[in-house]
């Protein structure tokens, strides 16, 4: 329900609606985009970044909040735990129970490996569960993996590691087939044709969806499959330190029961970090669309044992986070809303950009509208722009919203806003960690042997910006890949003597650099108490 203060602006939006539906705004040129990003995108705000003083990426810039965690103390001293007292002894240890971890677990199990999944919350408490819009795959006759490659490479500012991106696009159709075979319900026409739409920056309609519960549908199916296979999942248990063997290869982790704080040792022939993103670090004070446990743990765990990061200075701010009401501030409003025809409109009812620019460009454009151009709507908690959802019903016919984006309709209805009849207020929200740990095409860290990484914790697949629908794709493609390769490597591996010597090494490096800090990491969970 919108009160008096929104009335005037709402009227302007309604009055211009028919005209705005017909209006086709121009897309920005490459130069316009570059200038816009440099002036308004949070990644370009130099004062928000620190230079790393220690570790494999010493000298590089990352957000202040991440630098603090990367340079912090371990939660334990090497002497706090006996590495001879092994609680779990497995072939493949998977840290993280989201889409990448689950995909890896299924494939490693397929390959005959003895697998253990640990997750600090429950299996499925992950950003995968919250991905709404869809998953890309070039499987239509007018499309090809090559076109998908160009879309993603350009959208990511030509920074993606090409061999990773090539794998992503070439394995995409098979990923969809694999999910279908597990029983994931994609939206299809009665003859079996996939219903696909555009996402920001795509040149073909290749976004496959399961209504606007795409990630939830994938995640619950993968979780069900993991349980059916009897793969052990230890929940409410975090990894707080990786363990190497005497040869410097990843060989397990120190685990902590999140409720009792008991420490345990897991020994493994290979380790897969599938710990997800970092929205709950609240970089630059942004709200986030991420789940409760998105605190960059994998980056910290990997960094301390010498795994290199790539593009850890680039984050994705989803252009359309909910800006009103306050209870859902920062929650994701899926890009699919724009795929279905809703346009972004400013305070005066004017369409100020093409609705399907890439996410970084769209976010910067909204920030410009709300700052220098002074065309934002005042919500009481800040500025925002309108996303004119009633356009969808006018374009697609009545009932389109209920059928295609039921989760959005439900989320706003809880607060008395009927998105079929009223537009919604949006502002960018911290959404995705573009960067992460650097891997080779087999999924292994470029610098630490037998340490595999999959999902949002990886950097380099998407470059410096990710297209909608390429993340659900990446967790499946690279999750499966990591599972297969970690199992294969495990079958050839004999683990040497376990050691936590790296903690002392890292402590010394910190001391030598003159860094004084009380911080400990990984963060594990954000602290919202008394706030």
């Amino acid at each position, binding site marked *: 329900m919108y009160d008096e203060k929104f009335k005037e602006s709402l009227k302007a939006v309604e009055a211009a609606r028919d005209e705005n539906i017909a209006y086709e705004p121009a897309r920005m040129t490459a130069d316009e985009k570059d200038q816009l990003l440099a002036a308004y995108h949070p990644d370009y705000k130099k004062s928000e970044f620190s230079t790393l003083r220690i570790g494999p990426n010493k000298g590089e810039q990352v957000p202040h909040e991440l630098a603090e965690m990367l340079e912090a103390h371990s939660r334990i001293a090497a002497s706090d735990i006996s590495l001879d007292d092994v609680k779990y002894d497995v072939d493949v240890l998977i840290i993280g129970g989201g889409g990448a971890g689950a995909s890896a677990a299924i494939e490693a199990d397929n390959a005959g490996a003895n697998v253990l999944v640990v997750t600090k919350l*429950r299996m499925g408490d992950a950003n995968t569960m919250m991905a709404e819009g869809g998953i890309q795959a070039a499987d239509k006759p007018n499309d090809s993996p090559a076109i998908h490659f160009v879309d993603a490479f350009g959208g990511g500012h030509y920074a993606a590691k090409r061999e990773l991106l090539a794998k992503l696009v070439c394995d995409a*159709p098979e990923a969809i087939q694999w999910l*279908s075979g597990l029983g994931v319900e994609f939206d299809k026409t009665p003859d079996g044709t996939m219903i696909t739409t555009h996402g920001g920056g795509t040149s073909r309609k290749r976004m496959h969806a399961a209504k606007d519960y795409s990630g939830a549908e994938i995640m619950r199916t993968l979780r069900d499959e993991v349980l059916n296979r009897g793969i052990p999942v230890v929940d409410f248990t975090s990894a707080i330190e990786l363990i190497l063997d005497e040869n410097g290869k990843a060989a397990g982790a120190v685990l902590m029961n999140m409720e009792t704080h008991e420490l345990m040792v897991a020994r493994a022939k290979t380790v897969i970090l599938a710990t997800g993103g970092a929205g709950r670090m609240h970089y630059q004070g942004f709200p986030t669309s991420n*789940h409760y446990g998105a605190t960059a743990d994998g980056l910290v765990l990997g960094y301390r044992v010498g795994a290199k990061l790539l593009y850890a200075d680039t984050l994705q701010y989803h252009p359309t986070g909910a800006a009103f009401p306050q209870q859902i501030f920062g929650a994701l409003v899926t890009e699919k809303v724009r795929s279905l025809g809703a346009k972004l409109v400013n305070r005066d009812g004017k369409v100020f950009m093409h609705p399907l620019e890439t996410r970084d460009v769209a976010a910067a454009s909204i920030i410009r509208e709300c700052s220098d151009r002074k065309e934002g709507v005042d919500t009481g908690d800040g500025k925002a722009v309108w996303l004119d959802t009633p356009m969808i019903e006018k374009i697609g016919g009545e009932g389109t919203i209920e059928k295609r984006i039921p989760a959005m309709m439900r989320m706003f209805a809880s607060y008395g806003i009927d998105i079929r009849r009223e537009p919604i207020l949006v502002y960018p929200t911290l959404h995705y960690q573009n960067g992460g740990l650097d891997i080779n095409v087999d999924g292994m860290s470029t610098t630490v042997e037998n340490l595999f990484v999959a999902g949002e914790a990886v950097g380099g697949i998407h470059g410096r910006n990710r297209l909608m629908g390429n993340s659900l794709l990446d967790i499946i493609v690279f999750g499966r890949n990591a599972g297969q390769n970690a199992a294969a490597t495990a079958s050839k591996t004999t683990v040497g003597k376990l050691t936590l010597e790296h903690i002392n090494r890292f402590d010394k490096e910190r001391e030598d650099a003159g860094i004084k800090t009380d911080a400990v990491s990984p963060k594990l969970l954000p602290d919202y108490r008394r706030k």
Partner: protein
Amino acid sequence: MENMVQIYLFGKQYTVPDNLTIMRAMEYAGYQLVRGCGCRNGFCGACATIYRIKGDRELKTCLACQTKVENNMYVATLPFFPLVKQVYDIEKIKPTEQIMMQLYPEIYACVGCNACTKSCTQGLNVMQYIAYAQRGEYDKCAEESFDCVMCGVCSSRCPAGISHPQVAMLARRLNGKYLAPKCGHLEDRVKEIKDGTFTELIEALMGKPVEELKELYNNRDIEK
């Protein structure tokens, strides 16, 4: 000025701003949540909650992350509910009526009280989708249950001991794998990729200088 309300977390009284969700109110009161908190956006079902407004006979259910506090609200969270999850091999089972009979026979003990539907935090017609499952109409069960977040509240209220979310999960997988129409263009494309149809194209892209790729990207034709 914030308006404050009295709420009771597990029976203990706290004063919190009235614009908070139950989840945020717990944090405001000083709880560091570990259980009972997942996506914080209504998708994961971690924060199933039961509450009663003082003086009201009715026991209500909700997701703590999606529900605002009210004055005199007595709150108990239900962060875990022991649902029954039967295991099966998705490759071996078939979408017949027998499979429900075999795995979840308790659904036939439904007494029709509709407590599941009344308690659903997503407002789904739970009893109806169980009826579809009983009749082996898995496509309908899948559609009716699609928005389920598996919070388990329905099962906590069921006198017949049915694990509704797991029944629906099975129905959706059966529907997705066996009943939904097969996708021809997907199968064709997977085969083309395996046959190497695009290998040369991709390799050419991998080898191109960035300037050429910029040209390609900036002059793409975009499907209407």
